[in-house]
């Protein structure tokens, strides 16, 4: 029962969605909308489980005095305190979600700058990854290096100084060999996705069932 019911739901739902794709009628559109509206609802319930997991992990760390356990307080205190400020306390003492409020301060002055910092680190990581990738250790790596130099120079105004051939070559590389390779991968991905969907619909693939699959 634990296995059959979810598999039946997946099978019926999958077949309905597959057929729905070919039917433009309003009835078909309503079925599609009805199904897609369910997804956020399920997600909301699952979020409670997620927060529960996070709490459990960090309480366990604090109790066990695991390495770096004081940082667990840095997770748990904002996790529970900020919703209290946002939803329960009056604006006179920094409650609510408007400006000024504790919620707004933590979001716009703490969370967003930290996220931007993480994202900006990508530039340095790209530089170090590029250095590793472009070491001309073999013939293929040398071809990669030369191609990368041409494509990079073709994207910037200085490339024109070498002559019109450089931007044209860079564009040609992007438009033909690069695009052909991308399309080949996309084609394989498309078939792979379709095959996986079929395996789920017909019960061959059961990994998504978690423990109930076996």
């Amino acid at each position, binding site marked *: 029962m634990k296995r059959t019911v979810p598999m039946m739901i997946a099978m019926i739902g999958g077949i309905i969605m*597959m057929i729905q*794709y*070919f*039917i*433009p*009628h*309003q*009835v*078909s*559109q309503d079925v599609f909308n009805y199904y897609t509206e369910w*997804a956020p609802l*399920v*997600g909301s319930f*699952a*979020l409670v*489980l*997620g*927060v529960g*997991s*996070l709490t*459990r*992990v960090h309480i*366990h760390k604090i109790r066990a005095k695991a390495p*770096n356990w004081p940082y667990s307080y840095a997770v748990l205190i904002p996790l529970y305190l900020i919703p209290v400020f946002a939803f329960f306390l009056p604006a006179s003492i920094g409650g609510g979600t408007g400006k000024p409020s504790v919620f707004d301060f933590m979001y716009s002055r703490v*969370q967003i700058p*930290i*996220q931007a910092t*993480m*994202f900006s680190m*990508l530039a340095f*990581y*790209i530089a170090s*990854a*590029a250095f*590793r*990738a472009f070491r001309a250790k073999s013939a293929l790596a040398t071809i990669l290096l030369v191609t990368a130099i041409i494509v990079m120079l073709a994207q910037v105004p200085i490339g024109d100084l070498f002559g019109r051939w450089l931007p044209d070559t860079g564009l040609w590389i992007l438009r033909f060999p690069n695009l052909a390779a*991308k399309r080949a*991968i*996309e*084609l*394989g*991905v498309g*078939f*792979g*996705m*379709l*095959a*996986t969907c*079929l*395996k789920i619909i017909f019960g*061959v*693939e059961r*990994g*998504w*069932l*978690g*423990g*109930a*699959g*076996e």
Partner: protein
Amino acid sequence: MLKHLELLLLMVLLPFGIAQAQEVGPQDATAPAVDSSNPSDSSAVSLDTALEVVPPVEIAPPGAVTVSDFPNDAGDHLLVSFEPSPDEALGILVYRIYRRTPGATDGTEEWAVVKTVAAGDHTEIVDGYDPDYLVTQGTQYEYRVAAVTADCREIPGEVTVAQVVGRGEWFHTEKLKVLIGCIIFISLIFYYFKRAQMCHELYLRPIPGIDAIDEAIGRATEMGKPILYVPGLSGIEDVATIASLTILNRVAKKVAEYQTPLRVPNRDPIVYTVAEESVKQAYMEAGRPDSYEANSVFFVTDSQFAYVAAVNGLMTREKPATNFYLGMFWAESLLLAETGSLSGAIQIAGTDAITQLPFFITTCDYTLIGEELYAASAYLGREPKQVGSVKGQDACKGIVMTLVTVGIILSLVDIFTGGATDPSKSLLLKLQGLVDVTSLE
């Protein structure tokens, strides 16, 4: 004496003369005095003529309006075409298409402009795309087309009751090719399912990334360090995530056998619940339910970069010996993989995100490219149906490759013959049409 009399008479008459000269005419107070006898003052004459009210040019209104049902829709679009005014060249700028619902009580009984088209542009529109003026299935509308001239005159055409009402179709005819393609694909998959079940030994080419999974788990076991498994940052609705969870199940089984610690941080709460159950089940199957750590699979956050910070922190603190990044990734791929590389872990990645593949290839020891991620569960499990599905995919790719090769040959023939060979050209066009529709869908 006479001189004095003349002077007196002049003084008496002068005020009358001045008064007569200053008298304002009833016709035009500001108009300059025009000496019509002077032929050189022609500009004054033409200006006077221009100021006269020009009678408007008679422009015929637009002609008949034809309304037909728009094909392959839910009945919420109508195809409206009209005959342009025969005097379009006499100064018509645009046509306004009006619509109303006679007898409606929701405010749509008034004329509303549903579309404005430039004159000479086109005379056919699809009504129903504007979210402010949606077309309701089964409603009888009235249409009227008005021509608008350069001097903002509107010349309305006749009111036309729509000849049809919007009706939804039960099959999208333009998706017929997609349907045929799907049927062929599904048939091939089922054919190979059967073939694999009939104990036919099917060959699968080795994929180094998948072969390295055992080696990577063994390495972590030898080093006594944990294994980090990142199931991507997408939700459970993403096929890549499902493929990743299937691989997680296989990895967890091996991890349970080797008694190696496992860390599975999650970004999506639904993925977290599935992953937790999957790992728990894997430990049970391996006969080691007692070894399962309740906190080995955990939810971190749904914020992308906060998740990266947490996982990177885990990598730098616990220094896992093996990192798996399998699933859907975005900008965080390089942040994760580069940190893992710096921590000295052996890294196996797999994703169908084309833009992230170069980052993984650069920083990871093994990368499953695109479809290999989906095939990994078949490689690891070697179940007949799973293997059959991989062979089915290969067969489909074979068909596409054949079509591409034929297309290349026909293109070359077309180039070398200068388009002189009609059969090859028409076949090429058909092939291009097929590919275009497939890519569109």
